[in-house]
């Protein structure tokens, strides 16, 4: 990829030699600093700039998801990636767009005044049903015009697990957009997990046998890797009969996911995982609160429904059943928790508050059980992103990551809050006022997306100060995958 970029800049350089006569004074202030340094004396030709798309949201309280909140700050993305977060960020000025027809400028730069609103990372739903259109394999079933996709985006969900894939909710806003669907940027991963069964004695035996075979092969392979350096003739160990899924789990390429609820199964999975040295993800995990320490020690992660209900079996003296405190107790023991509602599809039957459209409500119930607000937010952003192995792209708002964000009219976890705008890859894909669904509910005061405003400001582009916050963000970005605090990631105790 880097090579391609180098080629590109070479091409730009060559083109620039022949294009010096173009009447363009590019203001480089909006580009990222590296580029600025690189081509200090270059005048970027229209032909190249033409492809760049900018999105600026300003005046917002930005909840980056890294523990930082920036008040009345701005965020700028270029071609779908966040390039700046902080203060005094300017979008490209009018001069930049010289030579581009007025009508097109709107697509080159969107500027959103989000005064009084909050910006959060787009929600990552670890699992959902039907959001991309219909159920089934994503590539075969996605419908970029579907109502479900719009309603998913209206909830603030920008990324979701669909089967084994992690995909973005990429919607066609207009029917004029080009087909076919570009899957490259939309499918973030096709191997988010490997499904293992721990429900019956035979499935447990099966899992153990396959895992043993995979481990044996892996050990043999690694030994061979060393030995073959000395003896080039040495034959590679046979891979026959080894389940590649289990190999992927052991090599850390993907996470093993189990569905388990009761104490005994959870303990069994924890022991199994420790024995073979992998981190299990457990869906359900209803009695996790009883064996939280064991799960924490095994490095387990959990996908829970905060409102899961099961009465304790009163005939048994041992603890049992569900607890509203499940998510909180698990996280205290070092188990990372992602939250999904009891019904993971869009329910249009009118029973509100139970389905994927009310994911923040489900999270609210985890908070009722003692989960901190910060970890609650993580349970629908960073944690699921990590579980699906896509946290390098989504889950937080950091420079270099995808510009997937939501703009809300208040605290995301409050029942009255609506998502006002949803942005995926730096493109506005949902605007509450533009859809029939919720526009009539507490309508937004007149303040619309105003690309012209930003363009006017550019006639005399103000000097852009260097953004210090950006570097701060970068630093935080480096250790993204490491635990942020003791509660969240202390899984080795």
């Amino acid at each position, binding site marked *: 990829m880097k090579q391609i970029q180098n080629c590109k800049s070479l091409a730009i350089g060559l083109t620039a030699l022949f294009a010096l006569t173009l009447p363009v004074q590019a203001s480089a202030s909006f580009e990222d600093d590296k580029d600025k340094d690189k081509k200090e004396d270059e005048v970027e030709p229209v032909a190249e700039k033409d492809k760049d798309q900018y999105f600026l949201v300003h005046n917002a309280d930005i909840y980056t998801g890294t523990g930082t909140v920036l008040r009345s700050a701005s965020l700028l993305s270029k071609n779908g990636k966040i390039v700046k977060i902080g203060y005094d960020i300017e979008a490209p000025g009018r001069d930049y767009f010289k030579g581009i027809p007025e009508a097109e400028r709107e697509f080159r730069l969107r500027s959103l005044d989000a005064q009084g609103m909050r910006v959060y990372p787009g929600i990552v739903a670890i699992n959902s049903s039907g959001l991309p259109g219909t159920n089934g394999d994503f590539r075969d079933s996605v419908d970029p015009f579907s109502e479900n996709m719009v309603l998913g985006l209206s909830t603030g969900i920008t990324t979701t697990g669909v089967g084994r894939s992690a995909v973005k909710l990429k919607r066609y806003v207009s029917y004029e957009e080009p087909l076919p669907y570009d899957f490259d940027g939309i499918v973030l991963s096709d191997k988010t997990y490997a499904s293992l069964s721990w429900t019956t004695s035979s499935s447990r035996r099966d899992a153990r046998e396959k895992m043993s075979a995979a481990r044996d092969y892996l050990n043999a392979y690694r030994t061979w890797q060393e030995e073959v350096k000395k003896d080039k003739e040495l034959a590679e160990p046979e891979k026959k009969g080894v389940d590649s899924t289990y190999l992927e789990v052991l090599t850390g390429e993907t996470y093993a996911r189990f569905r388990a609820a009761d104490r005994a199964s959870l303990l069994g999975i924890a022991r199994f995982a420790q024995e073979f040295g992998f981190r299990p993800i457990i869906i359900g995990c209803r009695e996790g609160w009883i064996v939280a320490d064991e799960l924490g020690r095994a490095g387990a992660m959990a996908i829970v429904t905060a409102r899961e209900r099961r009465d304790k079996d009163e005939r048994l003296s041992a603890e049992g059943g569900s607890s509203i405190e499940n998510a909180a107790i698990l996280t205290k023991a070092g188990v990372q928790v992602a939250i999904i509602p009891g019904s993971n599809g869009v329910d249009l039957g009118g029973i509100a508050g139970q389905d994927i459209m009310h994911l923040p409500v489900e999270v609210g119930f985890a908070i009722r*059980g003692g989960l901190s607000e910060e970890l609650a937010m993580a349970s629908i952003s960073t944690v699921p992103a990590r579980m699906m192995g896509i946290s390098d792209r989504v889950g937080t708002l950091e420079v270099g990551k995808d510009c997937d964000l939501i703009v809300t009219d208040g605290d995301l976890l409050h029942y009255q809050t609506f998502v006002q705008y949803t942005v995926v890859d730096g493109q506005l894909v949902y605007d509450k006022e533009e859809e029939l669904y919720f526009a009539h*509910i507490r309508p937004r005061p007149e303040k619309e997306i105003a690309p012209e405003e930003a363009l006017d400001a550019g006639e005399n582009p103000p000097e852009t100060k260097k953004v210090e916050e950006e570097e701060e963000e970068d630093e935080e970005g480096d250790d993204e995958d490491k635990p942020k605090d003791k509660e969240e990631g202390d899984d080795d105790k």
Partner: protein
Amino acid sequence: MSFPLRPLNSAQLVLASVEKVWKGIALGFGATLLASAANAGNGATDEVPSGGKFALHCDKALLCELDGEQTLDHAVLLVNDGRIEAIGRSSELSVPAEYKQLDVGSSWIMPGLIDLHSHVGGLRGYNDMVFQVNPGLRVSTTARPGNRNLVRPLAAGITTILFIPGSGTNIGGQGVLMKTIDGGFEDVLVRDPGSLKVAQGDNPKRWGYGMQRTLMNHHIRYSLRQGKAYAQRWEAFERGEGAEAPERHINLDVYRDLNAQKISISTHTQYFQVVLATLRILRMEFGFPVFIDHGSFDSWLLGGIAEEIGVPAILGPREVMWPTSPTRFPQDGRAEGSAWGFQKMGVKLIGFNTDAPVIPQEELPLQSAMGVRYGFDNSDMAAVRGVTIVPAVVCGQGEKIGSLEVGKEADLVVLTGDPSDPRTSVQLVFVDGELAYNAEDSEVRSW
């Protein structure tokens, strides 16, 4: 029956350790509460009172009166023998020396929540479907105080429910108003009959050969006409008209209460056509006290008529109508909240119900939150009143429960904030001045 003694297995050992940890945390929490109480300097201790005379100090009291001020900051509330004796500002209301005192710090106090559409007062057997109309059946005979389906609701602050028969027939029978605490039937009884349950929606269609609206409404009208005539005969006799008492029909006795306006008809009715039949037949034709129970979908379009003829709206379990099936609900694609609609049409008494177990009983406050989410104006705390004073008034108990007013039963909830917010947790619940739930009693909360 005896259980053989066994050595502890690993899971039980684990439990023991978990228990220790949680005891530690609970102790820590207790200490914090104690510290905050000591800081307040009002003579409060950390001991949670129960029964007798006590005073509760709090940062905010949600009064939930039908009109007027809705909150009182830095309040103190005096309870004497199960009733609210006084309520006022801490600085203005002095607490007599013999009262036990508890300062709940930054927590809020509100009246116990009330649900007028619930089926969890007993465990089963409340939906008899042998006959199509059953005005004589009493669901109180299946009530089971303190059953396992009432444990979480009590922990959620729901103290009173209207336990009603199912909607498998057009007249399911008589509901019972009961409290959610454990005890004998008389201990939990608020009023029996609590209501007459009429179902006009689609559920009774499952009866017999499959009825349609015309036959269902015919049977309802038939029973109501019989009942009305029966009640009028008795009223005439009680006025001294006629020497001989009318023949007693226990199947029709409930209509005497209805005709005397002592109870209401709680109507399982949901969308426009059905609610229209509710208003026309039950209210306009027979003049019985009626409330919409289970109101949903596009029924709000009838809000204007309902308000005019005095029919309150209790809404749920569907709080919003989605633009899904245009043949049935022709709308333009908007998500329309039921409460939003009724409010827009000028209905004064709007409440929320769960239809538990359709929506779990403990999620009653979430029903009000969903009402607000989908457009219900909550600026005057209408959502909280919709689960307290409004249902109290609608079921004829407005003088006894539903708000923090002097003389009312001391059904009190101590909680961490806005009751509609799922994030809010309930700490203490009092019913008739007795402590009914204390979150600290169990190491791990179920709800």
